[in-house]
């Protein structure tokens, strides 16, 4: 990475330096299906961000205030995000609500988030004004006001004029220090269970610099991404890393990609992109759902690394992806994997460039007993895929329940210590205390080391990861608990592996006294609709008789025990195992 600029300072300093050094070089390409892309150069991006920043300051946004950004992906989002940084505010990009998410649930989520994160302002669209307005001045909310930076004249006119407005014109735009907070990221969830991760300028800048070195990023690299910017993989890997290292990023609206997944490959081919990050399900989806006609003229020979991250890496899906796209020029050594999380800014382990992830065929029975015992590849072996080696600045321990370090090939919880670690969950000391022990972050993931490779194979936490999104079972159980026909407190939500989908699906098991098949069908539909109301798709519903669920020592139904019980019973008792 000898030609990549890696000075210190704030993130804004870095962006400014990149723009001063190469104002006409490509920074962000906003890719739209069927339209000419919007191409931002470094110089234009920073100028627009400065203008936006002055408009934000004039609208009352101050240094240190948290600005939630809730907008659909659009070409002005990038300079507006940078403008928040320029103004010394702390941007927090949040998911735009799906139409199926009930407005009340959306507000509740924001209220809960606001109490922890101290949200000060919401930068959003007029389309959400009616939904968001009740949050203001209700006495419970920290939110001071709404801004509409893509629609209101006080923003648009100054952006179109290209001139920074006064009186902020003479004021310094940047008053931040390296140790000041740069951004706030939230884990998924809908009822205020989200944990806000605060990261400083220095932490993010050092991380993307080190990670970029490990990836051997050069000025010839280009990133292409459809990932949402409210997710660490989209925000850190596909936006902060290229902006800081001065290489272009081609950005696709996630809602467009999911409807037309060939867009990513089309953009990669046309722009000659070299790096992309994808959750595992996308490998499966792109291999299965893209039609040959959509790939006319597409070549993938520019691709240096396609990095599988955010979900457990599944061997079958990597192979399927490679076999499907090798005829289009995808190189075997471009397959890559990574283990990352918001709490460590992003990456902890990564496969080195030019080396596909190592695999290890193990005996599944031994693995379930905590030992990765290599066996010859065969129909009964489980092929584990490595998530790579430690990147500089990160340390991992694999430990047993008593925190004793385990040898190679022994499965335990993965603990991390990193130079890029968060300072704790904002305003959440109890969650922070539970997540960190003697400076080690307890990931809740199960894995093992084998040589220099780390393999992540499961989770200790009950969290369900569907297509790269974290779902908290508590959120889903809470809304189903209220349904008529469900015995209160007797609901469990859990993830079920779906090999074809390449990810997990959400399943519900609920106790009910109902025996009439018509009433049970209605209840099943009510459960699915309750999930829709919080924008969660429920795939399987298992209705079980009273006293079916196993309780934990705390008196609540145990998710893991009931998951095993239901799946076992599903095979033997067809009357209870009602799947959609």
């Amino acid at each position, binding site marked *: 990475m000898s030609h990549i600029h890696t000075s210190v300072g704030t993130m804004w300093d870095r962006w400014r330096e990149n723009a001063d050094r190469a104002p006409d070089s490509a920074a962000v390409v906003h890719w739209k*299906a*069927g339209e000419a892309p919007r191409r931002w150069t470094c110089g234009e991006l920073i100028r627009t961000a400065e203008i936006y920043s002055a408009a934000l300051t004039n609208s009352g946004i101050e240094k240190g205030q948290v600005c939630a950004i809730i907008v659909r992906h659009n070409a002005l989002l990038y300079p507006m995000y940078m403008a928040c940084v320029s103004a010394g505010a702390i941007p927090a990009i949040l998911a735009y609500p*799906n*139409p*199926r998410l009930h407005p009340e649930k959306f507000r509740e989520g924001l209220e809960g988030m606001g109490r922890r994160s101290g949200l000060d302002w919401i930068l959003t669209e007029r389309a959400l004004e009616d939904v968001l307005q009740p949050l203001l001045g209700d006495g419970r909310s920290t939110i001071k006001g709404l801004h509409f930076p893509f629609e209101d004249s006080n923003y648009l006119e100054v952006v179109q004029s290209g001139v920074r407005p006064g009186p902020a014109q003479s004021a310094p735009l940047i008053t931040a220090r390296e140790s000041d907070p740069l951004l706030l990221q939230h884990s998924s969830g809908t009822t205020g269970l989200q944990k806000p991760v605060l990261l400083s300028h220095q932490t993010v800048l050092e991380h993307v610099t080190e990670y970029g070195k490990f990836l051997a990023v050069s000025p010839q690299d280009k990133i292409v991404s459809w990932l949402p910017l409210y997710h660490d993989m989209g925000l850190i890997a596909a936006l902060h890393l290229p902006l800081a290292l001065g290489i272009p990023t081609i950005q696709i609206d996630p*809602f*467009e990609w*999911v*409807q*037309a*997944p*060939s*867009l990513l490959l089309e953009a990669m081919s046309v722009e000659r992109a070299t790096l992309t990050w994808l959750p595992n*399900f996308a490998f499966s*989806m792109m291999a299965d*759902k893209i*039609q040959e*006609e*959509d790939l006319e003229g597409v070549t993938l020979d520019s691709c240096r690394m396609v990095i599988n991250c955010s979900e457990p890496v599944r061997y079958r899906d990597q192979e399927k992806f490679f076999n499907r796209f090798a005829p289009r020029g995808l190189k075997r050594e471009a397959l890559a994997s990574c283990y990352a999380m918001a709490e460590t800014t992003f990456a902890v382990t990564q496969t080195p460039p030019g080396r596909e992830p190592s695999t290890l065929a193990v005996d599944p029975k031994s693995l379930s007993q905590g030992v990765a015992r290599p066996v010859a590849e065969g129909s009964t072996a489980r092929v584990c895929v490595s998530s790579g080696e430690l990147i500089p600045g990160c340390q991992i321990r694999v430990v047993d329940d008593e925190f004793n370090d385990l040898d190679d090939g022994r499965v335990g919880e993965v603990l991390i210590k990193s130079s890029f670690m968060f300072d704790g969950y904002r305003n959440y000391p109890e969650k922070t205390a539970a997540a960190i022990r003697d400076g080690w972050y307890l990931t809740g993931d199960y894995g093992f080391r084998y040589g220099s490779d780390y393999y992540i194979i499961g989770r200790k936490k009950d969290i369900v990861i569907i*297509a790269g999104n974290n779902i908290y079972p508590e959120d889903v159980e809470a809304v189903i608990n209220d349904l008529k026909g469900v015995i209160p407190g007797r609901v469990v939500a859990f993830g079920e592996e779906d090999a074809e989908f390449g990810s997990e699906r959400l399943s519900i098991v609920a106790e009910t006294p109902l025996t009439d098949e018509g009433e049970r069908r209605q209840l099943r*539909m009510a459960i*699915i*609709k309750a999930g*829709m109301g919080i924008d969660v*798709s429920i*795939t399987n519903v298992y209705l079980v008789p009273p006293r079916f669920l196993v309780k934990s020592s705390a008196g609540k139904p145990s998710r893991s025990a009931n998951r095993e019980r239901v799946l076992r019973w599903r095979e033997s008792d067809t009357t209870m195992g009602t799947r*959609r």
Partner: protein
Amino acid sequence: MISDELKAVILSTLKLDGWDLTDTTLAAEVPGWDSLSHINVVLAVEKHFGVRFRSAEVLKLKNVGDLQRLVDSKLAQKP
């Protein structure tokens, strides 16, 4: 007006029965029809009617009525 044939393809893909689909029905209103299953619906419709949609056409669909009109226009172009 949504044809019974289109309704049957959509509902079968989503494993739903007895759900009414009208011109103005949005995917978000239908159980199981989320952003991730949308592509399955589109592929099933293409396969059933023997037609092909371009990405830009799929991205313009706002409701089930739009999908019906797109299917009709493709069928009209078939020899």
